[in-house]
């Protein structure tokens, strides 16, 4: 080992080290241009000059080539050294005055202008490129030729190099940008690697992460293009990785796993429209698939959320969406089913495109039927019309070039038969989803049965169970569906797999361990503030750099950092490191809302060894950037205020003790329909005790009146079987005529009182209380004419094969009765399919029967489309009516006369039918009392609200409460059953635990302030406070005591107390007052 000093600081390094390396080891910065770790030192640029003293001799020398020796004294900061470097820099800049990198380096050294004029080169002859090509790539495509002013970097004989691999390593190391075009060396244009995640819209490096949130978060090497893996040369990345993480020897492995069940969730690929010539995809640059457009809209996408045309990079002002591309078609190369998600996806894209481009964006959506049957989707489609989008019911005939500028002409046929042409800047093909051949091969290998359209063939009552025992499936593979439903089905498959595996639950589990928490209660606050861009969501509106700069000036703020997505795994890991590195003891994240993201960041604090209550969020997205989009300056100011308020509170935060309570492993399921029974069985089969409360005297609910499922199976026998299973299950107790009357407690320990004062203690609750059909009052003669039925009545009549059904010569269905109107602005989802199925059943009974379906949009989504096709083939007549012009029903000669305006003829038509079925809305029961008891919000229509529409579709916002079936939103039986299973999986995440951690933000008594006046006891809505007396200093001291389990931290006590004797931890009066003060500081 060698001992030397650098700027008087001693350092010990190994022999053979250069002075430059020793200085870097000490953290002393020496500028250099020609040095590159891993390449032979060259001493070419001379910028790294230092002063070395060996013995009595002192000299200026290039540190990159000077080896260390014992007793060497190095100085990097003397005036002589700096002057000498400045002179060298001056010469380099004089040679290459136009190179930005040199200009910047010169500026840092105090030089603004080159001392000599006339330089025209952009190469400083540092030789890095040549060394790189020779030493690491072992190629030698370039070399140095000539001497003095003729010296140059060239290929042999000045010809294109035959050995160059166009790897670009030379360009990578070039400090001046001299080697920019590798084609000049090889004669071959390098082919960029297209970014697969952005559907090839931009490029990526050879070592890359597929997308920022990828799991695991480590980058991967594209081995098909890696020089080291292909030839053994290069190895540059291993050399530069300070963590030593690169391992070229890794190979694919075949791993054998012993498992008790397999869940298939292979997903889908978007349909490739290049085979459908009429749309021009593939040869017209401005025709995009919906996935390409989606990536373009994404803030993390190829253009940072900016929408630009492939042909000229111009922002489009007029965009067309073409629905149903490759779907709902019997044509060659297309698919007969409906993909379910695409109508809504197009509507969403239009709304977001308008947000990006501005309110003047001309949006046209060419659709066949607008299929928006999920919760709140209908309102969304109404909203986009209000924003000026044109929804055009039509078939697109072709997309062709309109002029030479890349514009597109769309020819389409309207409903009335007219042919129109219109020019657009850009067209989006809303493509559906396709199960890939690889997935079909996998299914065949596993021996599971597929449907006609090669989706998984499942039964309605077992929606995630395949034909092979132990194999379950979910997601798009089970039939086309959108995100909430795939998420829900994922949970359902987990539940189905967990039932047979219940005995081995938890045997392979590892517990997450957190490091011990640092004691920072008394420490001076050192606050870290992390400001989130949330892609464009925040960063696209407010000025983040300005905010960061402002926050740095707030007292006690030790560290500020901006993140692109703070919640991504790599960002939270990086934040943990920053907390440790800067010794932070309070953390503020300025991002979205604590309702969804606080737990993620609190976990991050615990990982960093901090108490999770030392955390505060500033809501600068939901409550700032999203609601002040047009006022960026005012929004930026508000962000600063919100962060200042959060910091003010963070200063006063204290670590809180965690409270753990045991979990009661019993479930209560409210509602004894198919959904409730399935949930109860799902839980009971996993080994938990279940109480099933049904308000009526028998189980079965609405399903008792259903005839068959959409796949054709009879409902009756299956419901009977379900009832029998429930009644005989040893873990299930059924309570009939039981209504929830009183509820107390929280997740893990609820206490519910049912009718007849029956008290159930349970850890979770599943609400599955169903819904009911809307019963119109006098509309379409319902209730006035005996032959006007509701959909469920017709089911029953078909089941019983009544005379009037068998003898009917003509029947009609009217769709959307009581649905999709201002009073009930939602689609009831089941009715289109239900009517089409019943129409087919009637045709089966009597093929000569005239069957009419009067509809607004035919929403036979997913594989149900096949029945719509079949019904038309079998002669069922579909007549579309407009909401503004509904059919008129009157009695005529004992029959029913219906007058409706035919959408194709454009004329009124008279129909005479024997039976009329009204497909009426599904309306919620009186949900309000139950909603109030369990504190679950209802939406405007009275359905229960889930915690998150997409990612927590069966969880209520209140912990430990789950929702399934019609009480959440109208849906067909199969989806209700899947939801019921999903709730049993979600509930098991609580029931499988022995104890739960409760929130510690509850009331704490400050004994010295409390004199036992007991004002707070009456104020407490949870009866959590009791008055106690104890002996203190020889006298009786009155005070109050708070039950940790009962207290919810509402703070009514705190607001009532006249003596500051009780405070909610984490929301103390001082903490709230600090926020008030901070808010008003710059009013």
């Amino acid at each position, binding site marked *: 080992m060698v001992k030397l000093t650098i700027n008087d600081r001693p350092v010990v390094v190994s022999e053979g080290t250069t002075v430059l390396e020793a200085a870097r080891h000490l953290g002393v910065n020496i500028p250099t241009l020609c040095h590159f770790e891993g390449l032979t030192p060259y001493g070419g640029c001379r910028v790294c000059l230092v002063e070395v003293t060996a013995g009595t001799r002192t000299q200026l020398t290039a540190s990159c080539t000077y080896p260390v020796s014992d007793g060497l004294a190095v100085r990097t900061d003397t005036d002589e050294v700096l002057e000498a470097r400045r002179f060298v820099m001056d010469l380099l800049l004089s040679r290459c005055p136009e190179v930005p990198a040199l200009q910047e380096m010169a500026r840092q050294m105090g030089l603004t202008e080159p001392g000599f004029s006339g330089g025209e080169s952009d190469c400083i002859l540092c030789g890095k490129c040549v060394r790189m090509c020779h030493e690491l790539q072992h190629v030698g495509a370039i070399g140095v030729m000539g001497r003095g002013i003729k010296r140059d970097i060239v290929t042999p004989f000045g010809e294109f190099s035959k050995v160059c691999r166009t790897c670009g390593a030379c360009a990578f190391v070039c400090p001046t940008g001299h080697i920019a075009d590798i084609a000049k060396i090889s004669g071959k244009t390098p082919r960029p690697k297209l970014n697969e995640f952005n559907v090839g819209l931009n490029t990526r490096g050879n070592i890359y992460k597929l997308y920022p949130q990828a799991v695991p978060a480590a980058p991967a090497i594209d081995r098909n293009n890696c020089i080291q893996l292909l030839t053994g040369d290069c190895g540059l990345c291993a050399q530069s990785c300070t963590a030593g993480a690169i391992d070229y020897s890794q190979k694919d492995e075949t791993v054998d796993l012993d498992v008790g069940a397999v869940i298939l969730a292979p997903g889908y690929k978007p349909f490739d429209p290049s085979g459908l010539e009429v749309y021009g995809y593939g040869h017209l640059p401005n025709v995009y698939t919906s996935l390409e457009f989606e990536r373009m809209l994404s803030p993390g996408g190829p253009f940072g959320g900016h929408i630009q045309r492939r042909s000229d990079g111009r922002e489009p002002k007029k965009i067309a969406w073409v629905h149903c591309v490759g779907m709902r078609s019997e044509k060659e190369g297309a698919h007969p089913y409906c993909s379910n998600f695409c109508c809504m996806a197009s509507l969403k894209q239009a709304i977001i495109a308008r*947000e990006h481009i501005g309110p003047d964006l001309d949006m046209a959506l060419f659709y066949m039927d607008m299929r928006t049957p999920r919760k709140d989707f209908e309102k969304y489609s109404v909203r986009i019309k209000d924003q000026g989008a044109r929804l055009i019911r039509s078939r697109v005939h072709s997309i062709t070039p309109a002029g030479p500028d890349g514009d597109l002409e769309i020819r389409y046929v309207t409903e009335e038969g007219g042919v129109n042409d219109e020019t657009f800047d850009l067209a989006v093909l809303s493509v559906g989803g396709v199960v890939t051949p690889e997935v079909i091969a996998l299914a065949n290998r596993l021996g599971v049965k597929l449907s006609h359209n090669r989706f998984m063939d499942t039964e309605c009552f077992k929606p995630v169970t395949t034909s092979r025992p132990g194999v379950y499936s979910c997601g798009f593979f089970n039939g086309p569906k959108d995100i909430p439903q795939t998420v829900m089905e994922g949970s359902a498959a987990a539940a189905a797999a967990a039932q047979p595996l219940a005995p081995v639950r938890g045997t392979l589990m590892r517990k997450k361990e957190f490091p011990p928490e640092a004691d920072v209660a008394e420490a001076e606050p050192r606050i870290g503030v992390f400001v989130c861009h949330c892609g464009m969501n925040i960063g696209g509106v407010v000025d983040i750099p300005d905010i960061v700069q402002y926050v740095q000036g707030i007292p006690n703020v030790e560290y500020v950092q901006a993140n692109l997505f703070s919640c991504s795994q790599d960002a939270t890991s990086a934040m943990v490191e920053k907390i440790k590195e800067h010794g932070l003891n309070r953390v503020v994240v300025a991002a979205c*809302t*604590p*309702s969804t993201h606080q737990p993620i960041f609190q976990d991050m604090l615990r990982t960093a060894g901090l108490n999770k209550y030392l955390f505060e969020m500033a*809501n600068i*997205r*939901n*409550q*700032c950037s*999203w*609601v*002040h*989009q*047009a*006022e960026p300056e*005012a*929004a930026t*100011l*508000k962000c600063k*205020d*919100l962060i200042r*308020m959060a910091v003010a509170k963070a200063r006063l935060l204290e670590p809180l003790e965690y409270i753990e309570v045991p979990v009661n492993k019993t479930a209560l399921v409210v509602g004894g329909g198919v959904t409730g029974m399935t949930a109860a069985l799902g839980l009971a089969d996993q080994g938990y005790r279940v109480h099933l409360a049904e308000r009526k005297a028998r189980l079965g609910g609405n399903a008792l009146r259903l005839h068959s499922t959409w796949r054709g199976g009879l409902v009756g026998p299956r419901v009977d079987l379900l009832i029998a299973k429930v009644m005989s299950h040893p873990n299930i107790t059924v309570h009939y005529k039981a209504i929830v009357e009183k509820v107390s407690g929280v997740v893990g320990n609820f206490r519910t009182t049912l009718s007849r004062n029956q008290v159930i203690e349970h850890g979770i609750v599943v609400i599955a209380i169903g819904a009911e059909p809307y019963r119109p009052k006098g509309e379409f003669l319902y209730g006035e004419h005996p032959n006007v039925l509701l959909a469920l009545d017709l089911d029953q009549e078909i089941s019983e094969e009544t005379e009037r059904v068998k003898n009917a010569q003509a029947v009609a269905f009217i769709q959307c009765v009581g649905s999709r109107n201002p009073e009930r602005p939602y689609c009831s989802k089941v009715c289109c399919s239900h009517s089409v199925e019943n129409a087919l059943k009637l045709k089966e009974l009597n093929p000569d029967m005239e069957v009419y379906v009067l509809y607004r949009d035919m929403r036979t989504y997913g594989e149900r489309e096949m029945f719509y096709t079949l019904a038309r083939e079998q002669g069922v007549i579909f007549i579309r009516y407009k909401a503004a012009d509904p059919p008129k029903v009157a009695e005529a000669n004992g029959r029913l006369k219906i007058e409706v305006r035919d959408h194709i003829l454009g004329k009124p038509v008279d129909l005479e039918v024997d039976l009329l079925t009204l497909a009426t809305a599904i309306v919620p029961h009186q949900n309000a009392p139950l909603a109030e008891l369990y*504190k679950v*919000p209802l939406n405007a229509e009275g359905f229960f609200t889930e915690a998150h529409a997409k990612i927590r579709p069966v969880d209520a*916002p209140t912990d430990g409460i789950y929702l399934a079936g019609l009480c959440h939103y109208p849906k067909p039986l199969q989806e209700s059953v899947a939801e019921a299973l999903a709730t049993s999986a979600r509930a098991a995440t609580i029931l499988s635990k022995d104890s739960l951690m409760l929130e510690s*933000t509850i009331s704490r008594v400050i004994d010295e302030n409390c004199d036992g006046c007991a004002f707070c006891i009456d*104020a407490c*809505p949870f009866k959590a406070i009791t008055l106690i007396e104890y002996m203190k200093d020889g006298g009786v001291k009155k005070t109050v005591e708070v039950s940790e389990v009962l207290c*919810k*931290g*509402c*703070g*009514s006590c*705190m*607001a009532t107390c006249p003596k500051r004797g009780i405070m*909610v931890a984490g*929301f103390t*009066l001082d903490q*709230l*007052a600090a*926020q*008030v*003060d901070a*808010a*008003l500081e710059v*009013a």
Partner: protein
Amino acid sequence: MSDYDYEPLILAFLCNWCSYAGADLAGVSRIQYPPTARIIRVMCSGMVHPNLIIDALTKGADGVLVCG
């Protein structure tokens, strides 16, 4: 912007379980409103001590909203 030059600064104490969630939902729905409200999250509107409101008004807030 409003037709008036004067935008009152309003301090809003919002309940975590309802109105704060409502303010979040306003964001999700992109409902636009003047940027002069400052929201303080409380676990229940019941915890807002009268002194907090008086303090806010005396220290310069133009209005205080307690919502829950």
